[in-house]
Structure formats: C-alpha cells, structure tokens
C-alpha cells in the first residue's frame, strides 16, 4: 500500500477547511500522514455540515422523545406514529449557499436532497414545503434570486409529482448576501417497515443505485461551512444540476424494492456523497467497508478516487442488500432505467478500505474518525435585552385603514400566490387544505384523516430576543396546526445562523435553541429531525437568526377541520386570548412607524397551550365555522385575510376593556389593539357567540365577541370602511408587480 506518496502541505490542509489542531488529530488517528484522498474524506466528515461540531452540544438539549416518536434525530428523517399502522417521516434541510450561487439549481437540488432523506426511510413523499428568506426587495439581486429559487423548487417538485403545499417568504436586508432556502418533505410509511442506514452482516454487498457520478460540487459540503467573501463570485464552484426525472424513477424503484425483503440498510448520498453515506452505514453498524472504486458508475472518464468519494452528484443512493438479492434488486433498478452496481462489501475490520484496480488507495479507521469528530463548546455572548416599546409611546396612525392596507401589501405579509401557483400543490389529489391557510392539510391517502403541516419563524423576534424568538417560532407553528383543527405532533427544525466563531452569533444560536427546547417541552412537541446551517455571513455581517420550525399535526376527520375563510354573513367574530397590544418588534412598528426596535411579545406557554386546546376542541365539536391564528399584523391583518378568503366583509367594534380578561384593566389604545402581536390568540367565527364564550370561561381563557361578519367592506374601529376589492388589491398586487418590475 502506498497511502502516503505525498504528505499534504499545510496549504492543502487549510484549503480543506481543517485547522492545525484537527490535522494533528488526524495524524494521531492514522498513525501516519494521510494521502489526499484520505484528507478529503476527513475534511468532509469533520466539516460543520456533516459533523455539527459547533451546534452538537446545544442540539442535545432539545426534547426528542414522546409517545409517538419512532425515530428521533440521528436518522435521515424523523419518524412519528400517526396511527392506523402508519408513520409520518419528515425533515427540513437548507440549501442556502448553493441557491445563492445558482438559484434555480441550488433550490431544485435542495428539494431533491430532502426528498431522498424521506424516501430513504421507506416513506412515500406526500408533501413539500419551503421556507425562503431573501434580501431587501430593492437589492439588485433579490428579484433574480427569488425568481430562480421559486422556479427551481417548482421545477423539481412538480416533476417528481409531490405537491408543494406551503412555506413562507420573507425579505430583509440582513439576507442580501445570504438567502435562505429551507426545504421540508413529509412522507408516509407503514410503521413497521421503516428503513435505516445501520449496516449489518459482514460480507453483505454494498450497492450503488441511481445516477452516475460526475465531478459535481466536489467539496460542496466544505463550501457550505465556509463564510462567503466578495471573491465567491469568482470561484464559481461547479454547480450541481438536479434531474427530477431520475429522482422520480429512484423513488419508485426504491419503494418497489423496499416492498421486498432485499434491503438491509439504505442511505442517500447527500453532502459528501459516497464518503458520508458509506461511512455512516458502517459506523452505525460497527462494521467496516471495502469499496472497489472501479465499479462506481461514472459520468466522465478518468475520474480520480478523490473525485468519486467527494462528488455530490445528485439522485444517488447506497444500499446494503441481503446476500443473494442482487439479481432481484438489479431487475427492479433496470426496469426503471437506473444504474445499479455492486461496489463493495461489509467487513469486520472497522476500517474503510478503498481500492482502485485492486490496489488500496485509501484506508481509514471508521469509529475513531466518527468519534473523534470535533465537538466545540464555542464561547457565546447572550444577546442584550432590548428596551420595551409601550403602545402608549406610539401615536396612532393618521388613517387606520391606510395602515392596514400598508401591512397587507408589505413584502413580508402580502399574498404569496405568485409563488405557490408555480408549485403543483394538488398532485396526488389529497391536498385538502391548499396554500394560503394557516397550515396545509394533506389527506392520508385512502382515509378521512389528514396531516396538517406548516413552517414558521419570525426572525425579527429572534434578533431582538433569541430565546423568546425561538419559543415563539415553535408556538406559532403549534398555533397554525391548531387553527385548522389538528393535534400538533412533532417538529423538525432548520437552524440558520451566521458565523458561530463569533460569540454574539453563538449567543443567538444558544438562545434560540433554549427557546425552542422550552416551547417544545411545554407543548409536548418533540423535535424529531433537523438541520443546522452556519456561516450565513457576508463580509462579517451575519443573517438575522432564523431558526425555522417545520411542524406536523394530525386531523382525525377532515370533515371536522376548518380554514380561515368567513363562511356566512351575520356570524359572530370572537377573539380568543388576551390582547395587551404588544407592539415591540412588531410588523406595524417596522412598516408603518418605520422603527425596528423593542422586545418581542412574550410567549406564555401555559396560556398558549390552554388557548389552543380550547380552540381545537371548538373546531372539532363543530362549534366554530372559521378559525385563524393571530401573528404578524395582529387582529387587523387576520380579519382582512379572513374576509378576503371568504369574500365577505365584517364590522368590528371598539374593545371595551382589556379583552375579556375580566380584570378591569383598561383597553390598550386602538392601534395597539388592532396591530399588536400578543401571542396565543385566535379569531373564530360562530353563528352564536355565547356558547363559545361560555366554553372559554369554563376553560379560563380570555375571549370576547368583537364584531360580526357581513357585507362587502371591513370596518375597523376608528377607521373608514375598506372594501374587499381594496383589500384584495393591496394583498395580491405587490409580489406580481415586484416580479414584473
């Protein structure tokens, strides 16, 4: 063996993103200098992306267990029991850097990657979501990036035939140089047929299936962990191109083979392709692997072992088969016109041995490498507490109606129809609740039950107070599921932050994770999967902390679910939850007053839960006809959305006292009541108000009747009536106009 013709120079080591200390550790583990191939493998295995070295310590603090959890974090995706012998399998993943470089392909391959994480586990993907963050609309790149990302997500998801049913789109100058593209997939599998990556059976064949390996994105995984600088435009690393058609074939072929008993373990090739996937399988099974790299299907001639091991070509999987099942498996993949190659076998050596033409070209220890994977306790500094902004300190708007119209058309709050109409959100014919509501509802095929799915995060809250913002993201997701009548079950998270080597950024991460952990605990809402994206930073300026929460809930009977549209004239509109008129860090403060300051609204998790449980019960009992949770823009914005969805107006009365709290406190100023973003609140409609108010009293929940539906105008206290036409124009026109600009 000649593993060591050329010891890597310090420059090469640095180029691989490894610190001097990390390189010393490599020398220790290997007992010699690594060759370039081995160095490459270490570098991807220990990259932030694959090793979570900065965040691991904190991720461990998240609650990950619950009666429904079948597989928590650590697998390709989280798995929860949804009854009837079925499991929901889901995860969210970022493709931020690649999407900034090439928005169409970056976003498309992001969707492809997360789909593979889900069907690898044996689930048929049934829904995609996407949480997107772009820079200032006025920034010269924003329009192009948004157009490309949306086209890429649609181009991939539409072709594979998985409906894209929800997501979010925000804009902030803080993302000018670092957009966020977080994609989530939800799948459904028979509960007793979940596949994992844990290899077993010495001698079992290792099989490669899918597309051929090209020189795509070599070192993409390390790139994703390195800060951008002005030169990135120059470097132009090879971009990975997605092939959704091949992905569709791969889904069908894998699910077909999974219906047999041929597969021992299976793993998609994601970041760091063949390296990460085979390593992980062997490491989980406590085994070794031997690969014959000559057998790897290659797209181009003369590919080196380094390229084969580190390529990030898309639409590829690795499997360990039961002995003797190669012929069966090959037939399935050939039926679907996919490459199939036995590329190696499991060994009991605990080592990864790579051969080319029968010669050993790399030989690394598996467990020690995985165990020695660095874990940092990076220094962190807590985000200073922001000063409160009291409602009284803000003058009321000159024109309430104008303020509402302004919010309705604000980039963050306007209708995202332009986006979701480019996504096939109805394929599979089970989309019961389409985009535009609080949570998407996807019927479990062949049943009357449905999964409710949402993604949420309010970065301006997280920036003001990471802990409150983290908790709020979870609470809002939980509330969105509740608002359609679903029982919230579990979450996945995508933690997007700047450079963790800076204590203030690390402080944001720590704070957000604490908030998420606290809220998930209080709401019995375990985290079953997730992803961390760090170094979202350009020229020393990090993105706003953006811990996106993707959440899944269950509706037992779709005829008992609801949506936000006003249903009939003359119905009472009831505000559930207490309104103090919190305007700190609100969208009103930012868009109408023009100030970005203050503390975010406090999240009282006990109240959140109590209010939500009440509302869910009311929906299930058929006692309310529509429901919408309150978030950005408060009561006023929610009313406008409900009116628009139902094509029905409403007349709202001025609040009497602090809404239904019954403690005699004075009502907040009208503008604070209308636009305040206090948490734990919902608007519901009902033919009769009293039974709903009575139920609220029984449950100890603040609730008050605030108006009645009807007509074709929305009248807010202290404002002129606003026609539905005006509301629609304000809400629907900003995004298409901007994109046509």
């Amino acid at each position, binding site marked *: 063996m000649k593993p060591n013709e050329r010891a890597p120079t310090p420059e090469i080591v640095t180029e691989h993103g490894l610190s001097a200390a990390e390189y010393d550790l490599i020398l220790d583990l290997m007992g010699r200098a690594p060759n370039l191939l081995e160095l490459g493998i270490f570098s991807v295995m220990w990259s932030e992306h694959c090793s979570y070295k900065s965040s691991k310590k904190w991720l461990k603090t998240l609650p990950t267990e619950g009666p429904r959890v079948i597989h928590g974090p650590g697998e390709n995706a989280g798995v929860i029991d949804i009854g009837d012998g079925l499991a929901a399998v889901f995860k969210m993943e970022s493709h931020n850097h690649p999407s900034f470089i090439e928005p169409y392909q970056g976003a498309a391959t992001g969707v492809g990657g997360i789909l593979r994480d889900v069907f690898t586990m044996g689930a048929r993907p049934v829904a995609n979501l996407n949480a997107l963050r772009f820079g200032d609309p006025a920034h010269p790149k924003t329009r192009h990036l948004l157009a490309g990302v949306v*086209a890429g997500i*649609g*181009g991939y998801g*539409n*072709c*594979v*035939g998985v409906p894209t049913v929800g997501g979010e789109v925000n804009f902030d100058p803080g993302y000018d140089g670092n957009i966020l593209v977080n994609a989530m997939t939800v799948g459904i599998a028979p509960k007793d047929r979940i596949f994992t990556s844990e290899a077993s059976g010495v001698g079992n064949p290792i099989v490669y299936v899918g597309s051929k390996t090209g020189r795509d994105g070599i070192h993409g995984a390390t790139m994703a962990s390195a800060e951008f600088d002005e030169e990135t435009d120059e470097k132009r690393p090879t971009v990975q191109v997605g*092939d*959704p*058609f*091949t992905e*569709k*074939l791969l889904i069908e072929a894998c699910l077909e083979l999974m219906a047999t008993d041929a597969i021992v373990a299976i793993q998609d090739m994601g970041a760091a392709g063949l390296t990460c996937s085979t390593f992980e399988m062997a490491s989980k099974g406590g085994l070794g692997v031997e690969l014959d790299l000559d057998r790897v299907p290659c797209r181009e001639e003369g590919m080196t072992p380094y390229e084969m091991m580190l390529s990030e070509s898309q639409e590829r999987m690795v499997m360990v088969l039961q002995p003797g099942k190669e012929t069966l498996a090959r037939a399935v993949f050939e039926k*679907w*016109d996919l490459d199939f190659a036995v590329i190696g076998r499991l060994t009991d050596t605990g080592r990864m041995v790579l051969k080319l033409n029968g010669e050993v070209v790399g030989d690394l220890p598996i467990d020690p490498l995985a165990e020695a994977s660095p874990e940092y306790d990076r220094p962190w500094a807590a985000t200073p507490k922001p000063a409160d902004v009291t409602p009284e300190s803000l003058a009321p708007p000159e024109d309430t109606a104008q303020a509402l119209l302004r919010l309705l058309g604000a980039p963050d709050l306007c209708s995202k129809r332009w986006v*979701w*109409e*480019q*996504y*096939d*959100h*109805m*394929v*599979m*014919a*089970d*989309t*019961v609740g*389409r985009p535009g509501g609080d949570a998407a509802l996807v*019927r479990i095929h062949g049943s*009357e039950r449905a999964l409710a799915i949402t993604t949420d995060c309010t970065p301006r809250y997280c920036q003001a107070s990471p802990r409150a913002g983290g908790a709020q993201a979870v609470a809002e997701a939980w509330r969105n599921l509740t608002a359609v009548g679903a029982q919230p079950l579990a979450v996945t998270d995508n933690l997007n932050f700047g450079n963790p080597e800076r204590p203030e950024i690390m402080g944001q991460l720590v704070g957000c994770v604490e908030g998420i952990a606290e809220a998930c605990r209080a709401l019995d809402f375990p985290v079953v999967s997730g992803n961390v994206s760090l170094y979202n930073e350009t020229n020393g300026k990090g993105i706003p902390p953006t811990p996106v929460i993707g959440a899944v809930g269950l509706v037992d009977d*779709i*005829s008992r679910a609801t949506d936000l549209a006003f249903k009939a004239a003359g119905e009472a509109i009831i505000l559930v939850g207490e309104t103090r008129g919190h305007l700190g860090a609100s969208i009103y403060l930012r868009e109408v007053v023009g100030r970005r300051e203050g503390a975010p609204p406090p999240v009282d998790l006990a109240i959140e839960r109590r209010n939500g449980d009440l509302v869910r019960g009311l929906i299930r009992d058929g006692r309310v006809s529509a429901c919408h949770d309150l978030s950005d823009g408060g009561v006023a914005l929610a009313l406008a959305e409900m009116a628009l969805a139902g094509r029905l107006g409403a007349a709202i009365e001025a609040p009497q006292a602090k809404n239904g709290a019954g403690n005699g406190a004075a009502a907040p100023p009208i503008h604070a009541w209308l636009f305040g973003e206090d948490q734990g609140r919902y608007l519901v409609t009902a033919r009769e108000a009293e039974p709903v108010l009575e139920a609220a009293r029984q449950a100890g929940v603040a609730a008050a009747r605030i108006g009645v539906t009807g007509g074709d105008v929305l009248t807010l206290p202290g404002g002129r009536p606003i026609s539905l036409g005006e509301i629609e124009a304000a809400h629907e026109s900003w995004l298409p106009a901007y994109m046509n600009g």
Partner: protein
Amino acid sequence: MKAAVIVFPGSNCDRDVQVALGQSMRALRGKGEPAMVWHKEADFEKVDLIVLPGGFAYGDYLRCGAMAAHSPAMREVVRRAKKGVPVLGICNGFQVLTETGLLPGAFLPNASLKFVCRDVHIRVETSQSLFTSRYETGQRLRIPVAHHDGNYVADEDELDRLEERGQIAFRYCGKNGETDAEANPNGAARNIAGVFNEEKTVLGMMPHPERLADPALSGSDGRPLFDGLVEALS
C-alpha cells in the same frame, strides 16, 4: 367496463386518475378498477377506455410528451385508437396525444413562461361526446390546471377546421363564460383547453378533472366526466 391507465416513467397523475375513474366505476357499476399498464407493455388486455395520465413522462425533456409518444405501449394505443377505442389524455397525456398525431396541434411553453397551478374555469363546448355527455353545452366548470407547457398552437386553418367540425371540447373562460385573454392561463390559441379527434373518440385536455372529482377536495366538477365515460362504455 374495463379501463387502462398507461404509466410512463415520470407519469405522476396515474394514481390520481385511477382513483377518480375507479370511484365512478364502483359508484355506477358496483365494481372495477382501471388497470395500470407499464409503458413497455405493448400487448395489454383489451379495454374499453385508455387513459394517458398527467405528469412529466421522460421528464418532459426535449418536448413534453415527445419521448413517451414512441413507447411500445403508445404504438399500441395509436393502433387501437385508430380502430375506435376511446382514449382520454389529461395534461401530459394530451401532450403525448398531439406528439403521436392522434390529435392535431402542438404545445409551447405558457405565455407567462411559468408553471401555473390553479383552478380555472372552462366552458363545455359540446355535450355531444362520450366524454362530456353528463355536462350541458355551455356549462362552466371549475377545474385545476397544473402545467408549464399548456399553450396550445395549431395553424389558423387547422383551428378553423377544429371549430367547424366541433372538435373543440373545452375552452378557458371567465366567470360569465367569456373566453377572453384574461381567462386564458397559458396563451392557448382561441382559449382551447381540450380537443377531440374528428370521431370524438379521443379527447385531450389540459385541466385535471381527476383532481376535483371528490367533494373533500373543494369541488367535484370533474366527476361527471368519469361518470359519463363509465355510463357510455359499459
């Protein structure tokens, strides 16, 4: 009645149409389920109706439907269609039908150049066909479209001939049935959403009736199309 759904690599509405048609078969005839036929099978059993489903056959690479049109199963479909076996092509299936020449015309990318997925209104141009017998002529339906290349083109003479012979099955229309540019989601010539062959035994349509054939999915205007077929063909 027996029906077959041809499954191409990349088809993705095959199950959806199987469910919708199967539902009508069971409701009206108490039994039945369309068979799935893999595109490589040229000798599938004799059926009363062949369905070409929506999706992205062969990724829609090169041109939508171009590669699918040459699959072994399609050669057989063309042969049977020429003998009068009814064929329904939805969305990608419509594109495949034009590529085989069973239906006239061709498709270009939507005028917006964007994929469009939303409910549209279409006007039933004639109830005189086995596909539309359960609708009234002039009836307005709400049915979703989901495509990137739905911009139907044919030369003017061809379009005139289609009109004269009553081969236009559906047109995109507005709330009051008006077939203007505003109601047209993709730029299709003369707002055409669906066409028949001359004998009206082959129908291609861009909208997806199978996606709104179930009241739980916020509408069922697509259902009569399947009911009508089951009624006419069994």
